């Protein structure tokens, strides 16, 4: 479904992605983990076309999406939940959801589905997004990604800065969304969460994928965890 092959990305002269290759299959929930600053967010931005991929290719459902103007990428069926949520703070929660329906009106069945995952969102519909708590903002951000009925969602650290109870609940929602058939590429610092819900996990280091395995394989490969994630086992 989504295939990145040898992608290089630069901020100015500094190279951040250095031959990144990864793949997300139809209906898959794939994890991407790595230390701070290794290029995880950059990878997602490269998919969205927000940062141009210099070399290599980004293909989605057989199309080279790196050639599209960036605003067309979400219209292909890819939704993006950025790190730090990035809601529109002065728009209401409802407007934040509606603005994501770029090609039509928000359909109410889809709205109800979102409220099913996140009942809190429904209670906050008329509130300005900037006044929500961090957890609520995350729910709205995921809701905003869902509303356009995407085939693939790119999720960047959805549990960052949330309390443990909420982390668990967000993780379960992500899993539930995936089980309904939406493919997900999930970037996380929290390896434990990834191991719980992802079938396949990539580890990234200095702009490239250095390891790929199932959660049990990662569990077994203690040296990998120690080397790339500084996890003491």
């Amino acid at each position, binding site marked *: 479904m989504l295939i990145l092959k040898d992608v290089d990305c630069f901020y100015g002269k500094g190279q951040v992605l250095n031959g990144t290759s990864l793949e997300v299959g139809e209906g898959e929930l794939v994890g991407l983990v790595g230390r701070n600053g290794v290029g995880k*967010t950059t990878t997602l931005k490269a998919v969205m076309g*927000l940062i141009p991929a210099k070399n290599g290719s980004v293909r989605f459902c057989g199309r080279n999406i790196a050639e599209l103007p960036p*605003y067309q990428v979400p219209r292909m069926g890819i939704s993006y939940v950025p790190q730090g949520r*990035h809601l*529109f*703070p002065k728009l209401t929660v409802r407007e934040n959801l509606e603005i994501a329906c770029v090609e039509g009106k928000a359909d109410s069945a889809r709205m109800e589905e979102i409220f099913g995952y996140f009942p809190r969102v429904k209670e906050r519909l008329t509130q300005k997004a900037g006044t929500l708590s961090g957890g609520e903002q995350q729910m709205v951000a995921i809701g905003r990604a869902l509303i356009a009925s995407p085939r693939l969602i790119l999720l960047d650290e959805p549990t960052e800065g949330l309390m443990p109870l909420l982390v668990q609940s967000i993780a379960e929602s992500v899993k539930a969304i995936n089980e309904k058939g939406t493919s997900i590429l999930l970037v996380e610092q929290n390896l434990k969460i990834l191991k719980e819900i992802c079938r396949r996990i990539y580890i990234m280091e200095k702009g490239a994928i250095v390891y790929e395995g199932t959660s049990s394989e990662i569990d077994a490969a203690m040296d990998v965890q120690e080397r790339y994630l500084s996890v003491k086992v």
Partner: protein
Amino acid sequence: MASNLAVAIVNGIVWGLIMALIALGLNLIFGLLHIINMAHGALYMLGAVAAWYFIELTGNYWLALAAAPILVGGIGLALERGLLRTIEDKPLVTIICTFGIMLALQQLVLMYFGGTARRIALPVAARFPLFDLQYPAMRVIIAAISVVVMGGLWLFLNKTRYGLWMRGVVQDREMAVALGIPVHKVYMWTFVLGSFLAAFSGVLAAPIVSVDFMMGREILIMAFIIVIVGGLGTLWGSVVTAVMISLIQGVGSIFVVPSTATVFSLGFMILVLLVRPQGLLRAPCSRTRERGPGSSWRSAASSRRWPRSPSSRTFSTRPS
């Protein structure tokens, strides 16, 4: 005395409402495109001049009121696509470029329209008594039209999809792109809308002032003052400030000479900026939640268009 004061107040409100339309266009363009549009006053002038030609041709002011802004909107479209888009990441260059557009438009009008000021007759000649004076009804109609247009603008921004996109793009450009909003199209139509509003105010003002190729110059400075005092990006702040400054100036002119009255309004501006540097009616932008934590995201967002964070500036159409 009482009648003088009443006329000054009504005049101040009428002129303030015209200024508000001009400032709204300028503020919209600044809020979305981050362009300091030095050509805004020239577009206002162009609206009035185009209206004069339309009236020469058809004799109908109302036709001119509809046609001239559309024509100038078209010119705005050409300017945005042909010129401004090619230099969109360079704020300094856009200032110089729009300044150049201003000069070019002024000279073109001077060439074809000539340097003499011309008058447009009041399309509604009726007057009504205001104390012991007869006040032209047309001025009140002009004010009413301005209010209606502002109401329409409010509805457009708050109730239509395109308006929602515009408000979204102002707050977070990169996220808007990531949601599939065609940001460049939004920029283009915003510039067209701003040009339309400038020209529309020009046609509204034409029967009150005289039409000449320099009429946009002072207007531009006033509009900048209004936008800054009312708060960059705060649309309704522009409206309130426009009426207030115009009232101060109008009422002040009864007691002192007009140029001293201008000093009053400038003094008022300085006072406002000292007390509320973010603008008269704009909430201070230090609420941390609105900023969000993702700084790396923002720097990337801005590197594409403007070296500042997109989420630190927002515009609101109502009090927050």
